[in-house]
């Protein structure tokens, strides 16, 4: 991993303009991703983690719109790209794989057709036969046996795990610098989930590309990521290295997520503790901390004012009044 910045997101805001009102799906988030880094974005459904990823690759569907902030990739401002530039960028520099491999491949074209198409739309000079060779090579890379036969098959002839492998092969066929994986294992069986994560990990190590791994499963994150961002209601609540998230979580929400996660080596009497309550209504976001009503340590100020950013260590930040209070008290004691 080298330490040059690949992707820099600064105060990104994305809103959906629905008939019922503006939904602020992403409400001012910032982070950076270095070359070769694997970052996990964790949150419940509706926390804005996927929307954020779609805005990087320019696939926000109307009525979604980026309303503020900046996305810089390799020093270039992605939001200023024209549609043609974006087409050149997508699939070439940044690729994406999606949640449900069953519906993500076009049912009426063969696997090979869809793979070579992805290759040839960025490598215009490549001949068809060479593109097929490349497709076979990619299928081999993602561990599909008998690739020469597979490329002639239609998606419905493949199993879910196999289709996700095809999706990965398709995403990687142009050797992108960044892969965005949007819950790539959620729709799969548990055993296949592990295989797919292992595959992404292997390929990442081999190629050294950066990965944004979006998931609602902290367990998946532990396996593969260097850094974790926890999102809630369109905002980052905590971001830290993977060790800090698991062994030194600071935000009550992160704590809650960890406690609601089953552990393999748990003692018999340890129970899973769910996070009480339901996520907020994104249509009328409250002025205070969105997690407040579900937080057991909620204070009066949490409901009045948005929490400040508390820097715990160099790459560990959290947004919480509790931490602010602790920090303030500690500082006062120190004086």
């Amino acid at each position, binding site marked *: 991993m080298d330490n040059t910045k690949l992707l820099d997101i600064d105060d990104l805001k994305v809103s959906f303009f629905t008939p019922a009102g503006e939904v602020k799906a992403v409400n001012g988030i910032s982070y950076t991703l270095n070359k070769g880094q694997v970052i996990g974005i964790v949150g419940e459904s509706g926390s804005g983690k996927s929307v954020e990823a779609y805005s990087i*690759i320019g*696939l926000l569907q109307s009525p979604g719109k980026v309303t503020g902030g900046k996305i810089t990739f390799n020093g270039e401002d992605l939001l200023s790209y024209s549609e043609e530039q974006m*087409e050149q960028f997508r699939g070439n520099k940044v690729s994406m794989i*999606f949640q449900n491999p069953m519906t993500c491949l076009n*049912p009426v074209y063969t696997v090979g057709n869809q793979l070579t198409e*992805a290759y040839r739309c960025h490598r215009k000079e490549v001949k068809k036969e060479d593109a097929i060779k490349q497709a076979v090579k990619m299928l081999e890379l993602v561990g599909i046996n008998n690739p020469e036969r597979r490329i002639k098959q*239609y998606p419905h002839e493949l199993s879910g795990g196999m289709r996700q492998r095809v999706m990965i092969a398709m995403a990687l066929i142009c050797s992108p610098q960044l892969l965005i994986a949007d819950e790539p294992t959620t729709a799969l069986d548990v055993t296949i989930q592990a295989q797919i994560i292992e595959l992404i990990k292997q390929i990442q190590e081999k190629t050294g590309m950066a990965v944004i791994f979006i998931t609602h499963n902290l367990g998946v994150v532990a396996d593969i990521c260097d850094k974790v961002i926890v999102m809630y209601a369109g905002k980052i609540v905590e971001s830290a290295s993977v060790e800090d998230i698991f062994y030194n979580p600071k935000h009550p929400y992160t704590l809650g997520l960890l406690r609601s996660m089953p552990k393999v080596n748990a003692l018999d009497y340890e129970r899973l503790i769910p996070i009480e309550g339901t996520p907020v209504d994104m249509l009328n976001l409250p002025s205070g901390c969105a997690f407040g009503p579900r937080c057991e340590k909620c204070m009066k100020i949490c409901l009045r004012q948005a929490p400040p950013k508390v820097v715990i260590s160099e790459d560990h930040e959290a947004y919480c009044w509790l931490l602010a209070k602790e920090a303030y008290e500690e500082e006062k004691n120190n004086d």
Partner: protein
Amino acid sequence: MAKYIVKRIVQAFFVVILIACITFFLMNMVPGGPFLSEKALSPEVLAAKEAKYGLDKPLLVQLKNYLLDLLKLDLGVSFKMQINRPVLTIIMEMFPVSCKLGAISLVWAILCGIPIGCLAAYYRGTWVDNVLRVFTTIGVSIPGFVVATVLLVIFGVKLSILPTMGLNSFGSYIMPVMALSLSPMCYVGRLTRSSMLDVINQEYIRTAKAKGLSTKVVIFKHALRNSLIPVLTYLGPLTANILTGGFVVETVFSIPGLGRYFVQSISNRDYPIIMGTTIFLASFVVFMTLIVDILYKVVDPRMDLSKEAN
């Protein structure tokens, strides 16, 4: 695939037999039966007719005989409109006219309908979409005979720029084809629009965009083919629509086709012709549906037809 085709053919055959039975029993509800409704027959003629059609036998035997004749393509003879001419000969004489008119209308409806739907989907929410939506909604709501007669009055009578009868020149095709194809065209347009919008929101379209394909390739390669599948399934009912629509249009424009003849045979109560034409047209529709179903397999590899036929 071959197995599926055989199965579908057998199924289609049974539908035709079923229709023949329905036709036979319905026609036997007419007082005196379909072959004897002329009043005041002399006893000899009556006896001759009874013997000829086997009317003295039980109804089921009559049905069996009728179906057997049907297999031999014997649909009986006309007894009022063209006395003693075989019904099949009459049909074969009239049908090409209807078929030609219908085929032109069908092609026209599809050629205009699909682009209308694509345009509306592409410009969804804009004035183009709104104008097309108003047009297609009105188009599917106006009965065919209204379109036909309004066209006739405006272009045939008031302006006198198009011939009002027959199918003798190129110009004489314009109004019947317009009248016959308006409603199917609008229906195809609406169908294309909604299925296009449906497909555009599918995840594989998102995948195609994520690959970096241009909008053109996404729309024409990935979206269009998928969104035409529902349009293809509509082709069967569309054929039926155009055939029955032809009854009205041929009547209004005095076109000597099977449709107008059928309508005349109904008002003349020439039952053998009514029965024969019904069975013939129904078989034609069933046959078209069969072809469409087989085509479907070619376009959409997901449809595992052999499984579905089980």
